[in-house]
Structure formats: structure tokens, C-alpha cells
């Protein structure tokens, strides 16, 4: 068939049902167009066909015969510059589809209405078919409005992040776009049973790579069993589908019932994967329950005695309750992906969608017994991670082993179902909390018991987070893991904190309510953190706060409410970080072994170097996403900016001293903070610095008491993370933190079939993340003081900006209705049953 793609007449030999997206990407090499959901939900694959935006995953290429197709690579439209200028993107993986659709919308709008901005709701309705997991919706709104006003018809813009033009044109290359000569496509064969011993594996492939653990037991449906490769993904999938797996069934634990069968035998427990970002802490086991881990308690016995006495006496100062949270899935739009190649010298080259290239390289070297310099990792652009892409995971093992077996490069890209099923999640939790206030209205005791279901993985740290808040009153903090035959959890943006804050910040709110005290006023009394005090001061004066209704005072169908929640997070850094600067062709090139997963770390480095050397933006270039250069941090624990920015500044100062002559190379170091760090030395590239970052979220919602829906209207996000190095990306990340927090509060929930253990929410229709129409107006306020002891005066904000959001929604719903939600997400059924008892 014949087709015109980006103005070029092209002859194609394609099957009648082959989706356009595969033809564009695999046959024509136009990888700007992304395949994400493959079910028409997310819009990432949008292209123009005869000038109309079309989902190329749902359209057979054959249907475009003799038609003109324009992909993002062929698009040249003001809205692309608007996206760059207004930061309508973070990781950039959804961006190609968005800009194609936005281009059509902007043209249509301007033709019909002239150069005026459309209403916010009109833009949201037009873009409703696109999902952005980073939550860049505020920037997308601003970009489309600006393009409609005709503000970007000219040529140049100053992009809010340095790689923006690559991302809006489809030039940015992600791991899923990599295609090496002779490359095969690998597919993982996965368990269909929740618990079984695998007795045989038969697949019609020359090389079947084994991925089972040494005991040959699969402990969750979806666990990798083996991997096979073929010239195309379709062929590889067919081989995997036809594989015959022999199982000896074992009883499965799919709930937390005391009589559930054991997931691990006594001597297998140490094999349980760790889903915390730290080392595995020892804790006792009792069947499938591991814990308590209680070493972060402070005068725990006193706390428990005070709570018990208060309970026995019916003390009105005691507020106790049970709160639960659902399993949340990271859902990066770029799935886990790896392209592995062994070269003639026995060196291993990995293209990987990872947030920690150096950590992955070290793990790979260890796993495959290679010297460190024989592993090279490239992650030029990464389509989101949120914590789940921090190690050598199944797709990488499969790709490396298949590449070795087959003797050619092999690419393994997880399908959306695999990504949503097996690639990590934030555990579901049940929290029992009791908070006692004394006669003077001070915190007297706190007890928190948290049971977390991380599937086959352990390492929950939810209750421990209560050590970081509200002074030094006695507190007993106990964490338990409940293991089940479900897929393993993984670290997820602020591990442990969102479920703790969901319980704690609502209990503090309830305490204030019972005392007849303003919830912000109570926090100002209890919270010793001076940076958050500054945020409370601003929050308390917000019109939304001062004008909020009295709780339970409304009787109409639609009720508005305003809620507040505070958050506290550690300041982490990688003290060994270095940045190298070289003058190449008159341009200062910055290199370090870090990666940008959408955080804007490229922009942080570029802006520090440009400012320090007083250079225009075009004379600074940042090359990251490759090992083999000076050490850089993983994008974990909000540590990137606090690590690289001071090192970049140090390097720039050295370069200024050395002079900007061609070929000059300097290396800058991340100099120590004044008074050093809390941790005496870095473990795994991570030290904990002095001081805590803080956030206060004030959220306004409208509750529809007839139909059970909660609509977020406005969110004020006060963030205390010191100096902001790159305004656009920092703001974007805080807005995205709000959007993800709203998803956690209202929509996101993994469902597992209670009979088989199969994950049901295996597509983006059923696993529901927020869309642009769910995104409220977000006002980000930075408090930049209080970090003079820190080199560079600024710390990270990726985690603190999201962890308290759900609690602020809970408090807002309570303010609106007088009914306090205790279970996440706040679904329509829960709201209706909670309010009306039916």
C-alpha cells in the first residue's frame, strides 16, 4: 500500500490489521510516536491523518491507504514552542501525542474564535483523551491557552527545561525507541498461578532463558518464569503464549486471614525481596506477618500506657481510628525497558529506562561477574519512574541473558499489562492510630500500628514516619509486613509517608475539630519546624482557608470543603557527586552519571553553570544519562538537585579560574554542608543531611452528595525546600505531586481477583489515573529560607510535594460533609455508603 508520511510518499507492506503505531515505529523508524496503553485511553500514539488527530494504536495502517499522515516529527506548530515555554511536560513520553492533538485543537479554536484563550474546561474536554502520569496538566493548560492567544507564532522561545524542544518534536530518544542492528525482541513468560512449583517449561524457541528462583517456586501470578526472543514482538508473544508450563499447585495466600497458607517457609523468608529503599531491617515472623519493626518508637511503653488509660477513662482528648489505603501502581508511561548488547570484548552495553544508571551498572557488574568498566548504561531520556526503576529488574535480566544466548542485541519492553501488574506498587495498608491530647491541648502520646501488604516483598516503613512529625511526645510506632501471593511492592515516591499522613493528618484534624480549634492553629502549636511555620502563616491567610465553611454546616447537594495537611521529608543527598565541565567548540559541556526522569535535573545543571559563568543558554550543554563519566546520583529520595547543583557550581567556579579555553576540563565536587550530615558516611550513594523539607497543602473540593463524586477545585501547595534552582521544573514537579496525590486520594486502586490472585487492573481503563479534567487549579508557593547550612541552600522536593495531598483531600471532604473518609480511594460507593449508610 501507499501512504504519505510527513510529506514523503512511502510504500508499505503491512498486514490488514497491523496498527499504524507499529508501522510508524518499527517499519518507518518514526519513534516519536509512542505506544503506551494500546487501548485508546492515553493518547500518546496520536498522529494526524488527513489533518485529523487519530489514535494510531487503534487504527490499522491499511485504513490510511493513499492518505497523508503527519507524526510529531513532521509537525511544525506554535503549540510545540508553547509546550516548551510553559513547561507542559516533564518526562516527555506523553508529549508527542499531546502536541499533535493540541495543534489541531489550537488551529480549530483560533479559526473559530480568534486569538483568545479558551476556557479551562474547553481545553480539558479537548485533551480528555490524553494521560500524563507526571501530572503536567497545569503547564499543558497554560501552553495551549498561550498558543490559542497566538503568543508563539514567532520562532524562538526560552524553554522552561533545556531538553524541551527535543521532547516536543519527537527527537528525544527513550529506551523503547532504541533499535540496534540485528536486534531481537524478547518477551517474558509469566506465571498464571499465584503459588506453584514449576515442574517444566517448554517453549518453541531456540533459546529459552530461565528466570525462576532456585527453588523453582512462583509466588505470584505474573512472576517471570522464562524469556524468549524472536525477530518481532508479535512473534515472541506468540511463542510465549504457546509455551507449556507444568505446575505443581501450592495453596496461595490472597488475603491477610490468620489461617492463610504460608507464602514462605521458615528458611525461605530471607529471600523475600525488600521494597524499602534502605537495607532489610530484621524483624520477627509469625506466619505471613513480619514484625513489629518498632525501633523508631520513643518512650513507646509510656505512649501505650497513656493511650490505654485514656481509653479506659473515656478521655475526650483521645482520638483513635482505623485508616486504610489501596495499592497504588507507579504507572510510568514508558514501561520498564532494556536493550542489552554484549560486545566482542565481553563488555555489556545496556540501554535502560532507569532512574539510577550507576546503581544499575554496579548491580549488573556484580550479577554477571564483570569488572565495573565492562558495563555501560545509557538512559538518555526516561519516561517516568517514580521509584520503580531503580535496579536490575526482570526485563533487564531477560534482555541480558537472551542477548548472551542469542548472540545478538535483545530488547525487552514490558507490555502495559505487565507494567501495571508486576513492575512495582505502593503497598496497601491498614493503620490503627491513637492520638492523645492533654488538658493543655498538647500532644501527650501517639500510637501507630501499620499492617502493609507489599505482596511477596517486605520492608514497610509507614509508622516510622510518625517519628518525624509533631515534637517529642512519647510514641509507639510499629510496622508490620503482611506477605501474600501477590506481586511485589517497590519504592514509590515518598515510600511509607502517604499512608501515614492519610491517618495522622486526619487524626490531627479530628483532634482540632473536637477541641474547637482551627486545624492550622493547632499545627502551629504542635509543629516545631520553623520552615513549616512560615508556610502555616501564609496558608492561614489564604482566602480559601479564612472563608471555609463550618464543618457539617451545609445541607445542599453540592458541598464545598477545605482541608489542610502538613508533610515532612528527609533531606537526602549523594555527597560523592561530581560534575565535569569541558569546553568543546566554544560550548561548556556538563557531564555526570545521572539521569533525568522528568525531574528537570538537566535544567538544574544548565542553569547553575550558565549563571555562574554568565553564559547564554546556548553556550551550555548538559550530557547526562550515560555511565563512564564522573559519579552522579540516582533519581531516588529527592536527592538529585541537592547533589548535582553544588557540584555544578563548584565545577563552574573552577572553570572560570582555569579560563574558558577550548579543551579545558574541570571536575567539580559536591562540597560538604556546614555541620556535615546526620549519617556519618554515605550508604549506597545516599547520606541524610540536616534538616527536613516541609510542605503544607490546602485543598478545596466540591462534594456531590447525590452522585458520590469529589471534585478537587483548587490546591495551594506550600513547599519549603530552600533555594529553587530551576523555577519551571520545580513548579512542575510540585504540581505533578499534587496530581499524583489526588489520584491516590480519589481514583487509583489496584484490584486483584480474590480467587486467583490475578491483577484485574491491567490496563489504563481499569487502573485509573487522573486526567486533565480532574486537575484543579494549583498554586505553588516556595518558601526558600532556612537552608543556609546546606551547600547551595536548596534541597529536593519530589517527594515532600506529594505525600500529604491525599490527607488534605480527606480533611476537605470532612469539612464539606461532616463525614470523614477513612479508606482510600474516596470512591463514589464509599462516599454514598459513608454518608447514607447504604
Amino acid at each position, binding site marked *: 500500500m501507499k501512504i504519505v508520511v510527513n510529506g514523503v510518499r512511502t510504500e508499505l507492506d503491512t498486514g490488514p490489521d497491523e496498527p499504524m503505531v507499529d508501522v510508524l515505529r518499527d517499519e518507518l523508524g518514526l519513534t516519536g510516536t509512542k505506544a503506551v496503553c494500546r487501548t485508546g485511553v492515553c493518547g500518546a500514539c496520536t498522529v494526524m491523518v488527513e489533518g485529523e488527530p487519530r489514535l494510531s494504536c487503534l487504527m490499522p495502517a491499511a485504513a490510511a491507504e493513499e492518505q497523508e499522515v503527519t507524526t510529531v516529527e513532521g509537525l511544525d506548530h506554535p503549540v510545540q514552542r508553547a509546550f516548551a515555554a510553559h513547561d507542559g511536560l516533564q518526562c516527555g513520553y506523553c508529549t508527542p501525542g499531546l502536541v499533535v492533538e493540541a495543534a489541531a485543537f489550537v488551529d480549530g479554536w483560533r479559526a473559530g474564535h480568534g486569538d483568545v484563550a479558551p476556557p479551562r474546561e474547553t481545553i480539558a474536554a479537548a485533551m480528555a483523551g490524553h494521560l500524563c502520569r507526571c501530572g503536567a496538566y497545569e503547564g499543558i493548560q497554560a501552553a495551549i491557552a498561550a498558543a490559542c492567544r497566538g503568543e508563539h507564532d514567532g520562532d524562538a522561545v526560552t524553554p522552561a527545561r533545556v531538553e524541551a524542544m527535543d521532547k516536543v518534536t519527537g527527537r528525544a530518544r527513550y529506551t523503547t525507541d532504541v533499535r540496534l542492528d540485528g536486534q531481537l525482541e524478547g518477551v517474558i513468560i509469566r506465571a498464571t498461578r499465584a503459588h506453584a512449583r514449576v515442574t517444566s517449561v517448554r517453549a518453541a524457541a531456540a533459546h529459552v532463558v530461565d528466570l525462576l528462583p532456585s527453588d523453582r517456586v512462583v509466588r505470584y501470578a505474573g512472576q517471570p518464569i522464562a524469556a524468549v526472543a524472536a525477530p518481532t514482538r508479535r512473534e515472541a508473544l506468540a511463542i510465549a503464549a504457546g509455551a507449556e508450563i507444568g505446575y505443581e499447585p501450592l495453596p496461595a495466600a490472597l488475603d491477610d486471614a490468620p489461617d492463610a497458607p504460608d507464602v514462605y517457609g521458615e528458611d525461605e523468608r530471607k529471600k523475600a525481596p525488600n521494597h524499602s529503599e534502605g537495607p532489610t531491617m530484621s524483624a520477627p515472623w509469625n506466619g505471613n506477618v513480619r514484625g513489629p519493626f518498632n525501633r523508631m518508637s520513643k518512650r513507646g511503653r509510656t505512649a501505650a500506657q497513656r493511650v490505654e488509660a485514656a481509653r479506659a477513662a473515656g478521655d475526650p482528648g483521645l482520638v483513635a481510628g482505623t485508616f486504610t489505603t489501596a495499592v497504588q501502581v507507579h504507572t510510568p508511561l514508558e514501561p520498564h525497558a532494556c536493550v542489552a548488547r554484549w560486545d566482542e570484548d565481553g563488555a555489556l552495553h545496556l540501554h535502560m529506562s532507569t532512574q539510577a544508571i550507576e546503581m544499575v551498572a554496579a548491580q549488573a557488574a556484580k550479577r554477571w561477574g564483570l569488572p565495573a568498566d565492562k558495563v555501560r548504561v545509557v538512559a538518555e531520556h526516561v519516561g517516568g519512574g517514580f521509584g520503580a526503576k531503580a535496579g536490575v529488574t526482570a526485563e533487564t535480566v531477560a534482555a541480558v541473558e537472551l542477548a548472551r544466548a542469542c548472540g545478538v542485541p535483545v530488547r525487552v519492553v514490558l507490555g502495559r499489562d505487565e507494567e501495571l501488574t508486576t513492575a512495582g506498587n505502593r503497598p496497601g495498608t491498614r493503620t490503627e492510630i491513637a492520638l492523645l491530647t492533654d488538658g493543655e491541648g498538647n500532644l501527650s502520646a501517639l500510637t501507630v500500628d501499620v499492617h502493609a501488604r507489599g505482596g511477596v516483598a517486605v520492608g514497610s516503613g509507614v509508622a516510622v514516619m510518625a517519628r518525624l512529625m509533631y515534637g517529642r511526645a512519647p510514641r509507639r510506632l510499629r510496622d508490620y509486613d503482611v506477605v501474600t501471593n501477590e506481586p511485589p511492592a517497590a519504592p514509590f515516591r515518598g515510600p511509607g509517608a502517604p499512608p501515614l499522613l492519610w491517618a495522622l493528618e486526619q487524626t490531627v484534624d479530628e483532634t482540632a475539630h473536637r477541641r474547637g480549634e482551627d486545624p492550622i492553629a493547632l499545627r502551629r502549636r504542635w509543629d516545631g519546624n520553623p520552615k513549616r511555620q512560615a508556610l502555616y502563616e501564609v496558608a492561614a491567610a489564604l482566602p480559601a482557608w479564612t472563608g471555609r465553611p463550618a464543618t457539617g454546616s451545609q445541607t445542599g447537594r453540592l458541598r464545598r470543603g477545605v482541608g489542610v495537611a502538613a508533610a515532612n521529608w528527609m533531606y537526602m543527598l549523594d555527597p560523592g557527586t561530581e560534575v565535569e565541565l569541558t569546553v568543546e567548540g566554544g560550548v561548556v559541556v556538563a557531564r555526570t552519571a545521572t539521569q533525568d526522569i522528568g525531574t528537570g535535573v538537566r535544567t538544574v545543571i544548565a542553569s547553575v553553570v550558565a549563571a555562574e559563568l554568565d553564559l547564554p543558554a546556548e553556550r551550555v550543554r548538559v550530557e547526562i544519562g550515560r555511565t563512564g563519566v564522573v559519579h552522579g546520583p540516582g533519581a531516588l529520595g529527592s536527592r538529585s538537585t541537592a547533589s548535582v547543583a553544588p557540584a555544578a557550581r563548584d565545577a563552574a567556579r573552577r572553570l572560570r579560574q582555569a579560563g574558558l579555553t577550548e579543551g579545558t576540563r574541570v571536575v567539580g565536587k559536591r562540597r560538604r554542608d556546614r555541620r556535615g550530615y546526620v549519617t556519618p558516611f554515605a550508604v549506597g550513594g545516599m547520606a541524610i543531611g540536616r534538616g527536613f523539607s516541609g510542605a503544607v497543602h490546602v485543598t478545596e473540593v466540591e462534594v456531590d452528595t447525590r452522585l*458520590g463524586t469529589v471534585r478537587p477545585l483548587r490546591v495551594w501547595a506550600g513547599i519549603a525546600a530552600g533555594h529553587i534552582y530551576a523555577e519551571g521544573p520545580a513548579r512542575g514537579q510540585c504540581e505533578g505531586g499534587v496530581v499524583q496525590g489526588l489520584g491516590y486520594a480519589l481514583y487509583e486502586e489496584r484490584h486483584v481477583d480474590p480467587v486467583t490472585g490475578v491483577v484485574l487492573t491491567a490496563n489504563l481503563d481499569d487502573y485509573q489515573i487522573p486526567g486533565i479534567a480532574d486537575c484543579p487549579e494549583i498554586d505553588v508557593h516556595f518558601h526558600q529560607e532556612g537552608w543556609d547550612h546546606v551547600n547551595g541552600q536548596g534541597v529536593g522536593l519530589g517527594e515532600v510535594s506529594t505525600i500529604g495531598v491525599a490527607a488534605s483531600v480527606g480533611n476537605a471532604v470532612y469539612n464539606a460533609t461532616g463525614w470523614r473518609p477513612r479508606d482510600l480511594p474516596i470512591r463514589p460507593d464509599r462516599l454514598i455508603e459513608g454518608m447514607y449508610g447504604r
Partner: protein
Amino acid sequence: MITLSDIGAAALGGGELRAGGTDLMSRPAAGPHIDLRGLPELSGVTWLPDGSVRIGALTTIAALAADERIAAAHPCLALAAAALATPQIRSVATVGGNLLQRNRCAYFRNPAFSCFQSGGNGCPARAGHTLRAAVVDSGPCVAPHPSSLAVALLGCEATAEVDGTAPFPVGELYGDGSDPTRDHLLPPGAVLLAVTLPPPQEGERAAHHRTAGRALAEWPLVEAAARLVVADGRVTFARVSVGGVARVPLRLTEVEDALLAGEPLERAAELAATRCAPSGQNAYKVALLTGTVLEVLERAWAPAG
């Protein structure tokens, strides 16, 4: 050019008909796709002399939503069309495809399960996750019918035109929901050509609403459509239909009768609950159903603007 009879023959050989393809392309193929594109018998919107309108099965949802004459005559259908899915889906998906699509049950769509719908002999959803399950129990399968247009067309008393048969009421595409093996009753090889809506009632006012957690782009938990004629403060004509609650789209004659008998809207809407038999996690759908019905009754009673 492929003809209608070619298609019927091909479908008898075990393929699936593809109109817009938005459903078909997003699930594993059950055989070759047989493309309906460009068939003249299935295209076009035709106004007939008696005031009825014939809408070809390949008419896209977007065209339906944008058709001013349809919006004026049959606002309930236009509103349902405008509210479903996303702009891109609407621009490709068709009237026929929407009516004859497969259901959204997560068990049916997951290859790990076998059920009545996928050729098996059971319903794993009944023993499993039932939050979205049908709350009106009409048969062994508990997947709610997914078609928003069917809800509206049922309320509009539209007829379906299938190649080789006389036009029949749209509801007969679905029957009573007791057959758990399929989402519509057309035999293999049958091609839906068009739907025809009779002329609207004089002075009718209509509303449609889908209730879902998120603001847009989500399959509804419950949806409802209402057509009312109100004269001197009394309902003289009423059609109320609902989706998301049963194996098939439902017309709620008990609600209509109550309205005609002069019952207040709240009382009439409450009657929507009488057919419900909640089980598992779906009891909330009873309240959502009565709430959504009341929503459309109120809007049809006093349309905004």
C-alpha cells in the same frame, strides 16, 4: 469494493466485523477483522418525510454529536454521544460499533480468565471483584452493558435495521440479558445497517447523564437518559432508560408510569431501585441509580439555559 453479501459470508467464516475499530483493535483478535469501511448501505443521516431519521451504522459518534438537526430533534441522543469516551474515540467510533461492542468486564478482557463470554462456562466476576458488576440480576453474566447510545436509543424508541430483516426495536438487539455468552443477539454474519428514530414528541425536553469517579473519559458506573413532555406542571410523556446497572440497557417503565401518575420526581426516581438485587460490593449502585435517574429527570424538567 467489498459488498454487503461478501461481508456476511466472511463473517460466517469466523471473523469479527470492524467499524471504527476502537473496541476491536484494543483486545485480542478472535479471528480476522472484516472491514466495513465505505459501505454505502451503512452511511449517512437521512431525514424521512414522516419526520423520522435514519442514522447509518457507520455514522461516527462525533458526527452524531455535532449534527444540529439531531440535537434539536433528539437532544437525548446528542447528549449521550457528546459525553462518551474522548474526542478521538468519538471521531472514529461509530453508532453501530457502539451498539454492538463487547462489554468492559475486566475478567472477560483478561486472558487469564475463561468465562461465558469468552467461550468458557462460568462467571469468575461473581465470585470475584464486583464493584462494577450489574446490580439488576438478569442472568449468569454480571457485566453491565457498555453502550451509552443504546440507553439513549431505547429511550427514543428507535428501531434497528439489519440486512435482510424487517426493522425491529433497538431493545431486541439485546433481549433480556439471560444469555450470558454475548453482548447482543445478532447472529454471525448479520450486519446492522442503521437505526431509525421516530419523530420526537412536541415540546419534549431531554437529558442524559453519566456518573463516574473522574470528570471525563471514564466508563460510567451508572448512566441515565430521560425524555419528558411537561404541560401545566404535569408530565404527559416520559421515557426513562438506564445503563451500567444490568446486562442490557433498561427502560424503566415503572418510573415513567409514576411520572405520568403525577408522582414527584424524587418518588418516581426511587422506583428505579425496585429491580435491583445488589450482591457483593455493588450495593452503592442502587443509590447511584436513583440519584442518576433523579439527575436526568430534574434536568429534563427544567433544562439549563
